[in-house]
C-alpha cells in the first residue's frame, strides 16, 4: 500500500513509469543500482531503533521539521527492535538505528539479515562513560582513574572493594576506603551493554571468559543482556536513567555504572578516566571520542554484506594520547531499494535528513552529550546516502559539509585542535585533582599518599574532609614531594591508608550501637512499672463488675459464629406491653 499526497499523484505516476523503465533497463544490463528518479516531495518517514542515539535524533528531527518541514518520526524502542522491525513487511520502518549490525559475529544471539536491501551508515559517536559515586571522608571523589584491566575486573566481580591494590595503583593520590564496590548494570537488553561487553570481549577476553565460565554459560560473546552472578553485589536497573539515578543516590556509595556521558553530566556526577594505549587516563569528552574514532577501521569491502561496519580494535588501542578507549558509534540502517513500502518521496526525505545530520547536525553533538563524527566516517556515510533511491544527489559532498571536525577543504581540523591531556593524567605517581564529568567544578583534594607515613596519611584524610578549596593547592604542591619521594610501593601505601580509614570507624560505631542488656532491662523495668500502676484498677473493676452484674462472659455462644447475623428477634419474643398502643390521649 503506497499512499501518496494528492497533489503529486499524477507526477508520481510518471515517476513510477520512469522507475519501471529504469528497473527494466537495469535488468537488461546496467549494473548501476543507484536510483534514477528523484523524489518529488518530502514524504514523512518513520524510523525505529536505538535509545542510545535517541537524544541526538530527537533534536535533529525537531530541527529539520522546524526549518524545512520534513517530517521524521522516531521510536526509540531499542536496537534489536529497530533491526527486527526494519526487516518486517507489514508495519516496516523506513530506517532503523542500531549499535550493532545484523548477524554480528561473536554475538550470543542469532540475528539474521533481513531480505530487504540495506546499507549501514554511521550516525553519531559517543563514549561509554563510567559514572561512579565514591566518598572519602565525607567528600565526593571526582578524579578517579581506572585502567582497562581493573575496569573489566570490577565488572566481572574479580575486584570487590575500593581499597583493592589494583585500584590504588591507578590512583596514587587517593586514600580509597574499604567499602564494597557495587557495580550497577542494565537489566534490560541494551545497546550500551552490547558496546561495553564488546569492549571486554575484544580487549580483556581472559577476564570476560572467566566470568562467563563462572556463570555456567556456554556461549560468551557480545551480549545485550548483562549476565549477573547470583549472590553477587551487582545491582541491575532498567534504562540509562535508572542506572544513573541509582548511582546518584546518597546511599549508593561505592557504586559504579556504565552509561552514556550525557546522563553523568546531567546527574552532576563524575566519570572515571580510562587508561588508553598511550598511557594517559582520559574522560569521554567529545574530542577525545572523536580522536579515538579516527582509529576506527571500517570494513571497506563494498561487496561484503558488512560493508562499513565498525572494527573497533583500532579505537580501543588508539595510540593517540587524547583518545578515549571505550568509544564507538551507532549506525543508521537505510534501505537501498524501493521495496517494503519505501518510495522515492520517502527516499528524498531520508537522503536529505541523513545529509543534514552528517554535516550540520554534528555541530550539536557535543551539547547533546555525544561526539561529532570524524572525517573518515562522514565521508563513508555520504557515500551511502547516494544509494538511497529518490535522494537528490546534487551538492552533497564533503566540501559542502559543515561538520565541526574538519574544514571545507577536507583537512582534519579535529586532529589539529583537539586538546592534549594534562601531564598529571599520565600513568605514574601523579594524579590530577580536577573533577570530571558532571562535577567538573569540584576538585578532589588528593593526598600525599605516595611517600607518607601513617601519621601523614591520617592528616591527609582529615584534611580532605575538613578543608575546602585550598586543599587542592596544598595537595598539588605536595604532589611534587610525593613524586620525588617515590620508591614506596603502592601496596604499602595502600595498607597504611586502609588502616587510616579503619581508624575512623569507631566514631560511627559509637553513634550506632545495638540494643544492649541495660536497654532490655530498662524496657522490662518500665513495663513492670506500667503493670503495677494499671493492674489494681483493673482488678478492682472486674471484681466490682462481678459483684454487681454477675459474670460478664455470659452465653456468647462460644467460638462458633453463625453465618447469618443474629440481629433479628423473632416476632414472638418481642416485648409486648399490657397496654394498648398509645392513642391521641386525653
Amino acid at each position, binding site marked *: 500500500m503506497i499512499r501518496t499526497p494528492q497533489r503529486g499523484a499524477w507526477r508520481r505516476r510518471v515517476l513510477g513509469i520512469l522507475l519501471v523503465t529504469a528497473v527494466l533497463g537495469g535488468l537488461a544490463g546496467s549494473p548501476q543500482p543507484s536510483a534514477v528518479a528523484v523524489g518529488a516531495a518530502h514524504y514523512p518517514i518513520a524510523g525505529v531503533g536505538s535509545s542510545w542515539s535517541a537524544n541526538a535524533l530527537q533534536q535533529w528531527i525537531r530541527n529539520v521539521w522546524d526549518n524545512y518541514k520534513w517530517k521524521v518520526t522516531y521510536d526509540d524502542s531499542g536496537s534489536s527492535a529497530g533491526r527486527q522491525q526494519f526487516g518486517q513487511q507489514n508495519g516496516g520502518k523506513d530506517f532503523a538505528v542500531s549499535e550493532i549490525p545484523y548477524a554480528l559475529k561473536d554475538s550470543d544471539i542469532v540475528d539474521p539479515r533481513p531480505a530487504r536491501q540495506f546499507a549501514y551508515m554511521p550516525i553519531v559517536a559517543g563514549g561509554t562513560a563510567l559514572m561512579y559515586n565514591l566518598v572519602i571522608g565525607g567528600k565526593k571523589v571526582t578524579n578517579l582513574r581506572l585502567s582497562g584491566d581493573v575496569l573489566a575486573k570490577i565488572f566481572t566481580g574479580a575486584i570487590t572493594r575500593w581499597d583493592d591494590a589494583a585500584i590504588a595503583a591507578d590512583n596514587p593520590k587517593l586514600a580509597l576506603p574499604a*567499602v564494597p564496590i557495587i557495580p550497577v548494570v542494565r537489566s534490560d537488553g541494551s545497546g550500551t551493554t552490547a558496546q561495553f561487553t564488546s569492549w571486554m570481549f575484544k580487549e580483556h577476553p581472559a577476564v570476560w571468559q572467566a566470568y562467563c565460565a563462572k556463570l555456567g554459560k556456554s556461549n560468551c560473546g557480545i551480549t545485550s543482556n548483562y549476565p549477573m552472578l547470583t549472590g553477587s553485589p551487582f545491582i541491575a536497573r532498567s534504562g540509562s536513567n535508572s542506572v544513573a539515578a541509582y548511582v546518584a543516590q546518597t546511599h549508593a556509595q561505592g557504586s559504579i555504572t556504565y552509561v552514556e556521558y550525557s546522563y553523568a553530566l546531567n546527574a552532576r556526577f563524575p566519570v572515571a578516566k580510562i587508561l588508553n594505549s598511550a598511557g594517559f587516563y582520559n574522560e569521554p569528552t567529545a574530542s577525545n571520542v572523536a580522536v579515538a574514532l579516527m582509529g576506527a577501521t571500517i570494513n571497506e569491502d563494498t561487496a561484503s554484506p558488512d560493508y562499513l561496519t565498525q572494527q573497533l580494535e583500532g579505537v580501543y588501542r588508539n595510540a593517540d594520547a587524547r583518545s578515549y578507549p571505550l568509544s564507538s558509534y551507532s549506525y543508521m540502517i537505510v534501505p537501498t531499494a524501493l521495496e517494503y513500502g519505501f518510495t522515492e518521496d520517502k527516499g528524498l526525505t531520508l537522503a536529505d535528513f541523513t545529509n543534514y545530520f552528517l554535516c550540520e547536525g554534528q555541530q550539536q553533538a557535543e551539547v547533546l552529550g555525544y561526539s561529532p563524527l570524524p572525517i573518515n566516517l562522514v565521508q563513508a556515510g555520504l557515500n551511502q546516502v547516494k544509494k538511497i533511491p529518490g535522494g537528490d544527489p546534487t551538492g552533497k559532498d564533503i566540501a559542502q559539509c559543515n561538520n565541526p571536525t574538519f574544514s571545507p577543504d577536507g583537512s582534519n581540523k579535529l586532529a589539529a585542535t583537539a586538546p592534549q591531556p594534562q601531564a598529571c593524567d599520565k600513568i605514574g605517581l601523579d594524579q590530577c585533582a580536577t573533577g570530571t564529568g558532571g562535577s567538573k567544578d569540584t576538585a578532589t583534594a588528593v593526598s600525599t599518599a605516595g611517600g607518607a607515613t601513617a601519621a601523614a596519611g591520617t592528616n591527609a584524610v582529615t584534611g580532605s574532609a575538613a578543608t575546602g578549596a585550598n586543599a587542592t593547592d596544598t595537595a598539588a604542591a605536595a604532589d611534587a614531594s610525593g613524586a620525588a619521594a617515590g620508591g614506596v610501593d603502592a601496596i604499602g601505601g595502600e595498607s597504611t591508608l586502609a588502616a587510616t580509614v579503619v581508624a575512623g570507624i569507631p566514631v560511627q560505631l559509637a553513634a550506632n550501637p545495638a540494643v544492649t542488656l541495660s536497654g532490655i532491662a530498662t524496657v522490662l523495668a518500665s513495663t513492670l512499672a506500667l503493670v503495677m500502676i494499671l493492674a489494681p484498677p483493673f482488678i478492682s473493676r472486674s471484681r466490682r463488675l462481678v459483684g454487681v452484674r454477675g459474670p460478664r462472659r455470659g452465653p456468647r455462644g462460644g467460638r462458633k459464629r453463625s453465618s447469618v447475623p443474629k440481629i433479628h428477634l423473632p416476632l414472638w419474643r418481642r416485648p409486648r406491653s399490657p397496654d394498648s398502643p398509645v392513642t391521641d390521649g386525653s
Partner: protein
Amino acid sequence: MSDRTTPPDADRPANRDETRIIPVVSGSRDLLATEILELILTDSVLDQADAPDSGVAPRRLTTRASTQDRVFEWISRGAGTLVLTIMSLVGLFLLIQGNQALSVAGFDFFTTEAWDPNSGNFGIAAVLAGTILIALTAIVLAVPLAVATALYISEYAPRAIRQVLTSIVDLMAAVPSVVYGLWGMFLLEPNILGVSQWISTYFGWIPAFAVTGFDPNDPLASPTVFTASTFIAGIVVALMVAPIATSIMREAFTQAPIGEREAALALGATKWGMIRSVVLPFGRGGMIGGTMLGLGRALGETIAVYLIISPVFAVQPHILEKGSNSISALIALRYNEASPFEISALMAAGLALFVMTLFVNFGASIIIAKSRSGASSD
C-alpha cells in the same frame, strides 16, 4: 394469603406439593432469584395447585420465552462467546508462540532457575517464584489497607467527603504504572531502606526477613543490599492494587441493607459490632472479588516492577534482600533485544503465568460461589 380463591384442602395432593415448594422459596437463601424462578416454572405441579376446579384439566404453564427475551439471551450469550473467543485467542497466541521453547525445554522449563534461552538453559522456576512472592507481598499489604479504606469511606467518613474520597481512590487507580515505578525508585527506595534494615535486624530470625551478606554491626556494610528488593516492589504494587480492591469493596459495603444495619444498631451493637455482623458478611463476595482482582493486577504488573527490581535468576526467598524477578517484568526487560527463540521462551513464561492465574481464580470462584452476597438480603 387471605385472598386465595381455593381454600387449602388436605386431601388433595396439590396441597402437599405446594407445601413442598414454599420452603424452597423462603428457606434456601443461597439461591438466586432466577434459579428459584426456574425451579418454580419448571415444576409442573404448580399448575395443578392453581387449578381452580378439580373437574377441569390442569392448566399448563409454559416457560417459552418471549421474542424479546430470546433476543436478549442470544445477545448476552454472543457477548460472552465473543469475550471468551478473544481471551482464548490470547491464550492460544501464547501457546503457539511459546510452543517452540516449550518443546525444546520440556518439563525442565518449570524446574530450571536460569534464563539463557540462546544457549538452551532456561526455565521459569526462579521467575515464577519471584512473581508469586511480589504478588503475595503486595496482597498482604494491600488487602488490610483496602478493607480499612473501603470501610472508612462507606462507614466512618463524614457524608460530605465520601464522594471526594471515592474520586481520590479512583484517581489513584488511574495513576500510570510508570509513575508508580519512578516514585518507588526515586522517593520510596531511599526512605524505606531504614525500615528494611530494622526489620532484618530484629526479625531476621524469620526466614523470609533474613538478609544474607549484611552484618548490622559492620558500619561499612552497604545498605544497597536492601535496594531493588521484593519488598520494595511489593509496596509499590500494593499501592497500585489497593485502589482497585478498595473500589470494589466499597461498592459492596455501601450496598449492605440499611434495615439490617439499623436493626443491629438498635439492638445495641457498637459500630464495629454492626460492621462485623452486617457489613462484612454482606460484602464478603466483594472482598474476595476485589482481592482476586488485585491479585491479578499484582501478578501481571509490568512497568513498575520493571523499574524497581534487580532481576536474579535464582529463587530468592528473602524478600528484604536485593534481587527479585517477575514474569511480566522479564518479558518487558528482554523483549526488545531478544532473538526469536528467546521471544518464544518469554511467551511460554507468559503462558505459565496465565495458567497459574487460571487455577488461582478457579479456586477463588469456588469460594466466591459459596458466599453470594446480596442475593439473600431483604
